[in-house]
């Protein structure tokens, strides 16, 4: 449903960006209106697609685990609601799609904060935090479905809205801290410490987008009379537009931390054991992107070289670059795999390195005592036990 909604709204999103910006400021920065609108549209679509992809993978592999299922819904709806709200703005012409967009927004806003309270085991710790989630769900229901009501958060002053957001996020953080210190197992701690950063940003990130309009609402207001614009000077408006662009880009990238943090938790700490698919996607995604870049750059470079040397050579450049790509495929895949293993598969990577180092050490050793010490040192360094000892069977001792 979200894919259809987003697909149908892309042109509206582009139009909304193109029409809501002051063309004079775009001009002052030597941008084009189309380029600006395309950049903004691509940025928002990147957020949606990343959330959607991770959410779909989690759903596909672990739809039997309701915590994973909640995360999948949270990812998909959180990634989409802000973009959808721009594609189908509230208060404008209502279509048959409007209730669907409201529903996605509601699920996104409620599931994001709920996860903050119940991740990773689905229980409310402490129990009273259930009240926080329930009250948030009610507040959001008024805000989205009855925006004119006095209980609607959307109708409250901006400072009060921020205060509410701070309280609910703050208590959620407290709950996670309490859980981390008092309840979680060591593995859960490793898994959650990554996920929490993402969860907080999932709750706060989209609001940060609207905050940029609060901080700099006049930045690119097309309604500023030209006489005032010329009087004040275009640099003020251009500077303001830059601030907004940077702010929105940072917001979008910060929003991506939500899915990325779960990817890290999944890959590095084997959350829900669905790391293989993510690992393959990362490797082959990065490989494809790199090969495309190499291909485009290679073709352009070789064409220009051949043209300068022979006056032609387009076909030759394409053939040469294609052969180079074919030759690069395997070594590049190995390199990317190694980088991703080093970043995310520490255990495998560290174990492989440690074993390699140990074998280097022992192949030159003939003293049993030295080998024993090296083995103990390896165990201490890699496993970090509270104590360690090594028993060796006496060669003269006969088994019973």
């Amino acid at each position: 449903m979200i894919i259809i909604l987003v697909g149908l709204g892309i042109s509206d999103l582009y139009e909304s960006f193109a029409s809501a910006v002051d063309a004079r400021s775009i001009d002052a920065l030597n941008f084009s209106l189309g380029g600006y609108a395309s950049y903004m549209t691509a940025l928002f679509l990147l957020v949606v697609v990343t959330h959607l992809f991770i959410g779909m993978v989690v759903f596909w592999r672990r739809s039997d685990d309701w915590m994973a299922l909640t995360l999948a819904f949270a990812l998909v709806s959180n990634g989409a609601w802000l973009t959808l709200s721009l594609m189908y703005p509230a208060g404008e012409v209502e279509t048959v799609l409007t209730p669907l967009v409201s529903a996605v927004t509601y699920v996104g806003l409620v599931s994001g904060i709920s996860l903050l309270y119940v991740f990773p085991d689905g229980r409310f710790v402490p129990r009273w935090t259930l009240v926080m989630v329930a009250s948030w769900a009610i507040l959001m229901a008024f805000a989205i479905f009855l925006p004119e009501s006095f209980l609607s958060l959307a109708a409250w002053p901006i400072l009060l809205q921020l205060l509410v957001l701070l309280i609910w996020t703050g208590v959620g953080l407290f709950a996670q801290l309490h859980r981390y210190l008092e309840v979680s197992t060591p593995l859960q701690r490793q898994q959650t410490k990554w996920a929490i950063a993402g969860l907080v940003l999932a709750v706060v990130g989209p609001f940060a987008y609207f905050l940029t309009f609060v901080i700099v609402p006049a930045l690119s207001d097309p309604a500023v009379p030209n006489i005032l614009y010329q009087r004040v000077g275009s640099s003020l408006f251009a500077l303001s537009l830059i601030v907004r662009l940077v702010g929105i880009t940072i917001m979008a990238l910060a929003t991506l931390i939500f899915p990325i943090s779960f990817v890290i938790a999944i890959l590095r700490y084997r959350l829900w054991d669905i790391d293989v698919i993510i690992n393959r996607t990362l490797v082959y995604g990065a490989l494809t992107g790199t090969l495309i870049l190499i291909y485009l750059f290679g073709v352009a470079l070789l064409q220009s070289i051949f043209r300068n040397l022979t006056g032609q050579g387009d076909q030759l450049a394409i053939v040469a670059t294609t052969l180079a790509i074919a030759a690069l495929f395997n070594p590049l895949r190995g390199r990317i795999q190694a980088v991703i293993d080093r970043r995310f598969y520490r255990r495998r990577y560290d174990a492989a390195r440690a074993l390699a180092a140990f074998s280097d050490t022992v192949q030159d050793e003939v003293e049993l005592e030295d080998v024993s010490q090296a083995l103990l040192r390896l165990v201490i360094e890699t496993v970090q036990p509270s104590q360690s000892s090594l028993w060796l069977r006496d060669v003269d001792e006969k088994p019973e």
Partner: protein
Amino acid sequence: MPRIFRYLVMLVVAAVALIVVGGIVMGQQVDERLNKVYEISVESIEIPTDQASIERGMHLIDTVLFCKECHGDYLGGRLQFNDPLTGRIAAKNLTSGAGGIRPDTSDEEWVLAIRHGVDEDGTPLIEMPSESFYSLSGEDLGAIIAYVKSAPPVDNELPERRLGPFYQLSILSNPNLIPAEVIDHEGDRAPSPEPGATVEYGKYLATACRICHGPALSGGPGAGAGLDLRASGDLSKWSEAEFVTALRTGETPRGEDLDPDLMPWERIGELTNDELHAIWLYLQTLQ
């Protein structure tokens, strides 16, 4: 903490400190300039009360000086900026309604504001294009003040001015934002031309055009800047009739629409035929 993060934190702290110190220095410089008190001996102007003068004042305000672009259609003032980075800046409510000009504002105070860009307390106004209005004749200035005084009251309470860092930066980079600083307050004023279809009167009427089209009316490379109005400029292939049509209908000889947000042709189009002819004659003298 890894070394790279340490350097990153140090970099961020240094950048923040630099911004804070720079902001404080900038704020002090701007405050100093905005708190300067100007002591100007204001020329005495006779403010007429007859209907013809009031209508003349309205005509000038609407079509020549573009006061309503900033002060609003009923001169009731307008909030121009209101955000933390730009600040809170409003064009004043010029009427006698709530939030408007003091009822006992003297004629000298009106002259001080319009012609010299100085407020009633002697501090400079910002944004007011007084350097363009300095050349207004005493008669026309009197008519303008008469019209503003007669404008129906508009209740519009506007907030106190607060300049944000972006606006302070603009003040430092754009001297025209404090017109009192660029006006020679004791300088001679060119004799006012008689109204009529003459080059001199055209020049007189085109005074506010310079805000967008530049001091030489040669346009500019800046975003939203006006066309080059000189005889050899963007209008070189236009006839006078096409010039008048463009200003009356908003359509150029090439069939393109003038954007009213960029070019207030709807206001300028209210000028009389003689006035438009005078402006055309003047533009033809510019090389």
